[in-house]
């Protein structure tokens, strides 16, 4: 028996045909990254058992969940798929504790035992003190922890997270992303993270599926997606440079390279976002030298109408955008030795 999730998900609706093959090994996190309306929620609903497949097959740990060709459809309540929904969907009329205990009670656990186990999980996500509250009293971050506990308490075989960070403000997001990362690593089964935010995918996923108009346009590690985008959408996401590294005291180490980021509060794993137009290319060491300047070579030159994208090589591969006039004035071609520079203020840092 093959463990993990193996699926080919085909659903047809008037507006969108979804056809994707998705395989997730136990202990791995796959991110489904795509714009709104790409079919991400359809995949979530199909796996959860809330939307039957038109064609294809879903197999989880050797159990067939959906197979229209053989007339198999396991209803959602029998799938053992734990889901954290967009907006969390905590039951507003039940207390936090009752929300977490819901799945156990639904599976006929005795009331007392359900309460004890639910309390343990609330403890684990640090929400014990809120157990008597109603979901309406919780902040976005607290609701996310409760939703996570509610999904994990029944020991599902697959964990689905639909835009778990979308409802949060930027600061809470960074903190909650870390909480999520901790709990994801504590879950032994396959995990699917659905998101439209590349930072979520880059920081949380082992493998990223890019989905557009119902099909997968690229599968790869965050490195693959960032460095070798294969569609305009990914290029736009990746065209903005996302650099993963580790921050201390306003500096960020990316491999052997040190990048000055200015943000002294950031600590630990971070994603730095650098717009291609924030990077300047010079033939010699720039005057009045910004702290972030280094020697590199040009790996690629691509013309996009009135803009030119230049990829630089070691020590810090980045995409820069310059004007065609600059390219001809500086005589930039593949292999040219150049200096690249960025102002620290042009680097946006997200804590992972």
């Amino acid at each position, binding site marked *: 028996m093959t463990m993990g999730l193996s699926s080919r998900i085909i659903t047809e609706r008037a507006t969108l045909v979804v056809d994707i093959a998705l395989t997730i090994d136990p202990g791995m996190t796959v991110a489904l990254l795509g714009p709104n309306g790409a079919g991400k929620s359809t995949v979530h609903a199909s796996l959860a058992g809330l939307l039957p497949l038109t064609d294809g097959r879903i197999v989880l740990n050797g159990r067939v969940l959906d197979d229209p060709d053989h007339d198999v459809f396991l209803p959602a*309540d029998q799938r053992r*798929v734990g889901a954290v*929904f967009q907006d969390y969907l905590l039951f507003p009329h039940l207390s936090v504790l009752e929300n977490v205990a*819901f799945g156990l009670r*639904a*599976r006929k656990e005795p009331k007392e035992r359900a309460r004890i186990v639910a309390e343990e999980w609330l403890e684990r996500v640090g929400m014990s003190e809120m157990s008597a509250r109603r979901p309406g009293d919780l902040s976005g971050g607290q609701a996310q922890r409760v939703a996570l506990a509610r999904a994990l308490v029944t020991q599902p075989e697959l964990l689905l997270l639909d835009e778990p960070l979308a409802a949060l403000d930027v600061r809470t997001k960074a903190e909650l992303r870390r909480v999520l990362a901790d709990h994801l690593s504590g879950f032994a089964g396959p995990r699917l993270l659905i998101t439209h935010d590349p930072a979520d995918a880059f920081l949380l996923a082992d493998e990223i599926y890019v989905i557009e108009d119902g099909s997968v346009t690229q599968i790869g590690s965050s490195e693959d997606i960032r460095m070798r985008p294969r569609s305009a959408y990914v290029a736009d996401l990746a065209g903005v440079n996302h650099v993963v590294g580790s921050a201390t005291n306003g500096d960020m180490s990316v491999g052997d390279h040190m990048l000055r980021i200015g943000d002294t509060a950031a600590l630990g794993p971070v994603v730095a976002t650098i717009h291609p137009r924030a990077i300047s290319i010079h033939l010699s060491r720039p005057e009045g030298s910004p702290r972030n300047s280094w020697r590199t070579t040009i790996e690629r030159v691509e013309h996009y109408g009135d803009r030119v994208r230049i990829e630089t090589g070691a020590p810090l591969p980045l995409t820069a955008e310059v004007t065609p006039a600059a390219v001809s004035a500086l005589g930039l071609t593949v292999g040219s030795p150049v200096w690249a520079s960025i102002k620290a203020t042009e680097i946006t840092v997200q804590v992972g």
Partner: protein
Amino acid sequence: MSERGQTRLPRAIYVAGAAGLAIVAVPMIGLLVRTPWSDLGGLLASDVVVDALRLSLLSSIAATLVAAIVGIPLAIVLARTDFPGRSLVRGLVLLPLVLPPVVGGAALLFALGRRGVVGGPIADLTGLVLPFSTLGVVLAATFVSLPFMVLTVEGSLRNLDRRYEGAATSLGATPWTVLRRVTLPMVLPSLISGFVLTWARALGEFGATITFAGNLPGKTQTLPLAVYVALEQDRDAAVAISLVLVAISLIVLVSLRDRWWRAL
């Protein structure tokens, strides 16, 4: 002298609004003015009034329960499933809302009377005769009040975010558990409104009752029928009984006002 920043409305709106209030308030004042306060105790203690009050409360509560037992499932089916002829079924269920009650009573009589299509076989098999019985009163009240239950509950089910039900299902809840622990609790305010509206309609029922169940004191004569009869014979008694109906309605409205105002 108005508060600074208070909403300003055209004068005509206040005038028309006051006229609307008068339409409801003036008859109530008329009733209070005409009430024989000194004889009230004696009038209300008469057998006719006590019997009618008992019967009215009993039959309206029974009708509300029956309407809930069959009406809530009907509302769920209408709100949650799609089948050919669904809008036809919905229209049929809502028919008693617009039909003159006396026509409803006549229809009940033709169908469930001693010689009716359904009533005949029922009487032959079980000996149960519905017309002119207390059971007939309950049936007539259920007939006219059922749409209130179905409409209220169906509307709130349609407005409910169905993703909550999906979330419950994915947590392992069977359809029955989802209904019991998520769907119905989440529409509770509307359920309560449904009960109140249905009960109020059943309590006030007149036309279908008198047509189908008749006007037998102690057996089928409810408070509205007693008012009607008393108007012909004893005006003071009619006023006294009317006052009882107003009082019951007010008590219910006031005691349920929080949920009532919020849900409607």
